[in-house]
């Protein structure tokens, strides 16, 4: 390990940075999961960081000490290190250099880590889909589609308006069955339109707007890039990568409640007996089955 003129000095291999990285990761993960993981992470990061810096400082100190030897300074003497190990000193300038870098790093970390967390994390933390009352079951005649627009998250206001195509499938055994299809195109999220006559007339229930469709739609078409779907939301033409997303539902006190949205690769059959191939919600444009779905291995929490 003789540092020579041809090879610039690089720090020797060390495992400490790995520990430091693990600590930082634990710190960040802890911010999402639990605060004491963050504390443990911070402790690990500080401990390993200290060890790493100490190592580097030691190495630098060695080099500095070695350079003091005159035969190395003028470069003409024997290039081999003297047999006697030089004293392990920390050069003053090496110490100042490293502590400047270290303190600068601490300042940078103190400022940027919370700021980064503040910027990045909220988008991934507060996602929730409270069940929303769409009105009494009698508003949804069996076998008919009703274009239903509702404010999915009332505290957020009009910006959370969503539209779904709701069809009462009648009873499946003893349980009521509903089909609730989202109107966000599975290609890039444009608002799909039911391919039928949409009347101007609408009914209102609280914040929910209901437009019953007198003529059942033959499917849905996307106004942006030419996607076309059948009435169950299966892609029949154009670029959509999967079927239209759907909403889960529940019945409480004779009212229909819409729940969390989920993604659907395709649907076999129709109505109450349809077989729905269900996946966790994905962004439009993402394949959720087949080889292409390997491109999107991890979904952020929705």
């Amino acid at each position: 390990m003789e540092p020579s003129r041809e090879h610039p000095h690089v720090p020797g291999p060390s495992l400490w940075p790995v520990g430091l990285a693990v600590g930082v990761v634990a710190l960040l993960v802890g911010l999402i999961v639990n605060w004491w993981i963050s504390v443990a992470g911070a402790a690990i990061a500080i401990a390993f960081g200290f060890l790493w810096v100490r190592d580097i400082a030691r190495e630098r100190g060695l080099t500095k000490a070695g350079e003091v030897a005159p035969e190395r300074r003028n470069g003409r003497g024997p290039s081999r290190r003297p047999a006697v190990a030089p004293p392990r000193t920390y050069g003053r300038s090496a110490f100042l250099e490293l502590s400047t870098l270290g303190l600068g790093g601490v300042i940078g970390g103190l400022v940027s880590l919370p700021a980064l967390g503040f910027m990045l994390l909220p988008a991934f933390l507060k996602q929730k889909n409270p069940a929303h009352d769409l009105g009494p079951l009698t508003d949804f005649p069996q076998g008919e589609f009703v274009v239903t627009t509702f404010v999915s998250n009332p505290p957020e206001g009009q910006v959370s308006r969503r539209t779904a195509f709701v069809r009462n499938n009648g009873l499946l055994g003893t349980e009521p069955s509903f089909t609730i299809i989202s109107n966000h195109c599975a290609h890039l999220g444009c608002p799909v339109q039911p391919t039928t006559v949409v009347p101007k007339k609408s009914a209102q229930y609280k914040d929910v707007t209901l437009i019953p469709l007198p003529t059942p739609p033959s499917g849905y078409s996307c106004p942006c890039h030419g996607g076309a779907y059948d009435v169950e939301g299966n892609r029949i033409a154009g670029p959509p990568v999967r079927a239209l997303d759907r909403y889960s539902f529940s019945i409480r006190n004779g009212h229909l409640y819409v729940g969390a949205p989920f993604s659907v690769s395709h649907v076999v059959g129709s109505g109450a007996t349809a077989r729905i191939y269900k996946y966790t919600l994905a962004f439009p444009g993402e394949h959720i089955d087949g080889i292409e779905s390997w491109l999107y291995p991890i979904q952020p929490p929705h």
Partner: protein
Amino acid sequence: MAEDRIVERKRVFAQYKQDVKERGKPFYPYAMFHDTVMSLVVVIVIVGLAAIWKFTTPGHHTGFGPHGSTDVPNQAGWLGKLYDQPADPGTISFVPRPDWYFYFLFQLLRIFKWPDSVILGTVGIPTICLVLLIALPFIDLRSERRPSRRPVAMVAAVLAVLSMGILTYRGATAKEALASEEVTHVPSWAATEKFTKNKEAVAGARLFAQLGCLNCHTYLGQGNHNLGAPDLSAEGAKNKGIAFQIAHLKCPQCVNPGSQMIPFADQPTKNLTALATFLEASKGGK
């Protein structure tokens, strides 16, 4: 030899510096005069566009009410409307279009109309273009600058400009077979196909436009060609009869095995009869 080239171009650049020193002109006022005139033109154009936008918009410009209620009309001037309707995340009638300088990207997305190729249009091709653009000085290493001696570069530039132009134009004129838009063509269809007097056929034509038939079929130049669906402008010339058309609408696969058409059995008989009458009345305008 690479080294020769490096030495040579260093020499040329040194010569350039010397030439500029010896027989160049001072930036101010010679070149800067041109710059200032051009900047003035730019500012005048911008102010002019703003003024044209405002003063060619008819009526008073007080915007729309909340969520699409259009009590106050806002008409378009020469440069379009002063503002669109307020954002409505729950709309089912809006046709989104980007600003003109993203039309090329918009059209690129429309070109890749197979699910497996979506990622090429969204990420693949734009990334490749950006990387090529950044890497250009390291791809084109010759020092030749005269356009007449750079045929490859010039052809590439012309192709790039052409394809951007075509994509932008196609994006600007792109239309989808939407019920709300197609239904406006019904009177002209009736005139061309000569069934204006046939009330039943006109009603069928409206249904034809609204039920999304044009997502897959074409009719008198409207609609998309998808799933191998035939053009229906002259469907009636085959004289298959209304009963056949109704049976086919109800269950396309029963009449025509292997057909990929979706069944319209959910529709009331009244609608099916109107559609069938319309199809039989479409004789291709003869």
